[in-house]
């Protein structure tokens, strides 16, 4: 106790709080002076504290957007799972950047590095899933004779993987072909990819040489995401009938192990050997589908399969509504508490209200500094911490009245009240903080946001009630004109 109330500590804590308010406040002044908008991130605004712009980071339930939890499956054998997870995150990042989302949040999760959580503000679930799960793994196949094959692009033949895939492509661009009539995708192979492609085209032409000749072996077919498992099923005609239809990005992005989606892209005849590592993919593209394919190829392929475990989409209007409601609820709560304290505890109540407003400002500044992502549950935690902040004050004031009734002088009563209320305040808040820490680590995601804001609120409220309220009381009551029974809410006051 002595430690907490010693003057250097008081000055230090008050100093930190004032500084945090000053930094936050000066941020607003800077924004107003330079005609920036007052809330949210501003592109081009120089960072105004420790390299950070200060603003409230709103969770998706307040800003509107989509949240998806993905399960990663089919990890490649013999690779470090954490690395695979990081690579997957990098690919998702590239894909999402094409959407132009501000501050996308893509985090790894799961005890086994087998989860990825994606938060995208202002994007609907459909668009998000199509972009993230977009299949971009180009697969080149050649054809081998198999008499049992009934359907597919080449009757009596089944495809064989050539080892040439989208991973061998260094860049892809969507463009209009030389005739200026249809959309195509130009690809540039890497050096190994280029030589693989050169060899494949040479073999294809050699299968039935001569200009104008055509045979199935002369076709190098391009698929999206074709696997060996698909090829093994090639003799099942109904399977091939579905698989051999034009690729369906929506189906592929949302596929489950049991769905069969179209994966066929194009089946061109190889006219001549192509060296130099450049090729063109044509095949009834629209501008959109050509661009999507190019973007997909450029961002690389996912090393694993993604299965969406849960999807949450909140519209921006609902988010804005929630923001309004929580601000209203917070202000209402604060107003009720302030009025009640002033009526019931008179002068100490007024001082506690001052401390409370100070407290609210400090907590909000901490939220911006950390930064804490505010969600509905988080705001509830904050509003509740207001209740707990009041509690510490109530404990002190009730004790203060008792001490005055017991015949102490005002000054002695203030000190005794704070000192005697301290064990209860300390123990009760410790229990809350312990609960919060446990929740922040093992609770479900919603609960974690709540636990963080509540913990910050409780810590600041401890400082606010013990140090700020106490010092305000001590300073104000040093003036004898305030030492009146009526002002203090007690029956009589002992005068020295």
């Amino acid at each position, binding site marked *: 106790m002595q430690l907490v109330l010693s003057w250097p500590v008081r000055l230090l804590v008050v100093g930190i709080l004032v500084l945090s308010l000053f930094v936050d406040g000066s941020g607003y002044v800077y924004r107003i002076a330079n005609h920036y908008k007052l809330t949210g991130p501003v592109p081009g605004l120089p960072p105004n504290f420790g390299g950070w712009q200060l603003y409230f980071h709103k969770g998706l339930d307040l800003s509107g957007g989509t949240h998806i939890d993905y399960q990663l499956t089919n990890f490649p054998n013999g690779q470090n799972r954490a690395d695979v997870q990081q690579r997957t995150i990098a690919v998702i990042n590239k894909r999402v950047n094409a959407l132009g989302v501000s501050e996308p949040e893509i985090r790894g999760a799961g005890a086994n590095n087998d989860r990825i959580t994606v938060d995208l503000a202002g994007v609907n679930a459909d668009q998000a899933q199509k972009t993230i799960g977009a299949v971009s793994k180009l697969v080149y196949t050649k054809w081998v004779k198999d008499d049992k094959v009934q359907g597919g692009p080449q009757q009596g033949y089944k495809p064989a993987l050539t080892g040439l895939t989208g991973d061998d492509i260094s860049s892809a661009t969507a463009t209009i072909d030389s005739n200026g009539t249809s959309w195509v995708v130009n690809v540039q192979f890497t050096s190994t990819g280029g030589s693989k492609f050169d060899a494949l085209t040479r073999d294809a032409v050699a299968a039935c040489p001569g200009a104008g000749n055509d045979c199935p072996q002369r076709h190098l077919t391009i698929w999206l995401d074709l696997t060996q498992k698909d090829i093994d099923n090639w003799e099942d005609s109904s399977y091939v009938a579905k698989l051999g239809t034009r690729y369906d990005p929506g189906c592929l992005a949302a596929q489950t192990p049991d769905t069969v989606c179209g994966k066929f892209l194009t089946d061109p005849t190889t006219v001549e050997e192509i060296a130099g590592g450049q090729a063109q993919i044509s095949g009834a593209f629209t501008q959109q589908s050509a661009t999507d394919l190019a973007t997909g190829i450029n961002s690389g392929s996912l090393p694993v399969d993604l299965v969406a475990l849960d999807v949450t989409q909140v519209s921006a209007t609902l988010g804005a509504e*929630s923001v309004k409601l929580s601000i209203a609820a917070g202000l209402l709560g604060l107003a009720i508490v302030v009025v009640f304290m002033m009526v019931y505890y008179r002068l100490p109540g007024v001082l506690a209200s001052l401390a409370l407003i100070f407290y609210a400002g400090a907590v909000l500044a901490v939220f911006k500094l950390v930064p804490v992502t505010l969600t509905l549950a988080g705001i509830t935690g904050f509003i509740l911490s207001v209740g707990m902040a009041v509690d510490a004050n109530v404990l002190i004031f009730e004790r203060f009245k008792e001490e005055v009734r017991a015949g102490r002088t005002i000054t002695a009563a203030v000190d005794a009240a704070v000192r005697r209320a301290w064990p209860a305040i300390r123990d009760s808040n410790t229990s809350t903080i312990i609960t919060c820490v446990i929740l922040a680590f093992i609770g479900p995601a919603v609960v974690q946001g709540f636990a963080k804001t509540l913990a910050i609120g409780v810590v600041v409220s401890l400082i606010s009630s013990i140090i700020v309220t106490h010092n305000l009381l001590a300073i104000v009551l040093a003036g004898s004109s305030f030492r009146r029974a009526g002002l203090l809410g007690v029956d009589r006051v002992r005068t020295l």
Partner: protein
Amino acid sequence: MSERSDVDAAEQSADIVADGAPEAKVAPAPVAEPKTRRLNITGRRNLFFALSLIIIVPGIVSMATKHFALGIDFAGGTELTVAFANHPSLAQVQGAVDAEGVNGSVISTGGDGYIIRYPPLTASQVTGIEADLKNRLGPTNVQQILVVGGTIAGETIALSALAVVVASVAILMLLAIRFRNVPGGWRAGFQFGGSALAALLHDVFILTGIFSIMGALLHWRIGEIDAFFVTAVLTVVGFSVHDTIVVFDRIRENLRVSQRLSFEQVVNLSIMQTAARSIITSFTVVLVLAGILIAGGSTLQGLALALLIGIVSGTYSSIFNAAPLLVVWRRLQPLR
């Protein structure tokens, strides 16, 4: 930091007064005039225990037989929150949803708002349903879409239960440590911790029981439990312990300075001295919550109601259950 107050004991005992209605054989001489209104709470403890049981027992029966009405994040599935511009009736919306043949059910949220629930669907299915609703019922405003798979739902339940259990144990340990220096040592510490834990479980059971009755028995939508409900339970755990610690702290202090009073009298006195604070604090929080319940949107109303029930219960249990329980425990296991 020392537990000892540096105000000396003799001086402090001046404000400790004997219980007004002692049933004890050796009645201490009443000191001074009564300063706090005196009720004999520890004496009537059986009445208060019974009152708690009246609510808890039906709640437990309901939980055991009917379980809970689960919200989407616990049950899994797909939930669309939609507002229609053309003001269709509930029957019209239900008709349109039935025609989709995906096994959907419709709940009205008042006004033009509806919540439509399906089994878990894929993204393309959801897009299809959105388009279909638009076709059948006119312009829609889809406010929220939730798709929760079984894995996540199971994990949320497991994590929530684990969080409650771990938090309870941690609180028991904290109290045992904090109260081990009252006369009686560690064993007394566990008596304090255990009584607080009992009061905490009391509040958890009251809250979950009432929600089971409202949700599973009466089929009110506000009685559905979801992750927000877990948040509420945990907050109530925090508040309940908060209240209980304040009473126990006073008992700890009074035990040190008053040698003349019996344990039961000390407890009763401590309850009386702290009741005003407990009720005032809870009252302010209740006011805030009532505000959210009335003004808040449907997302926050369930949370506010749960907190309201839990905090009232928490205040009741710390005054009327935790401390009297301590007296019962002390009788069964005397420590002095």
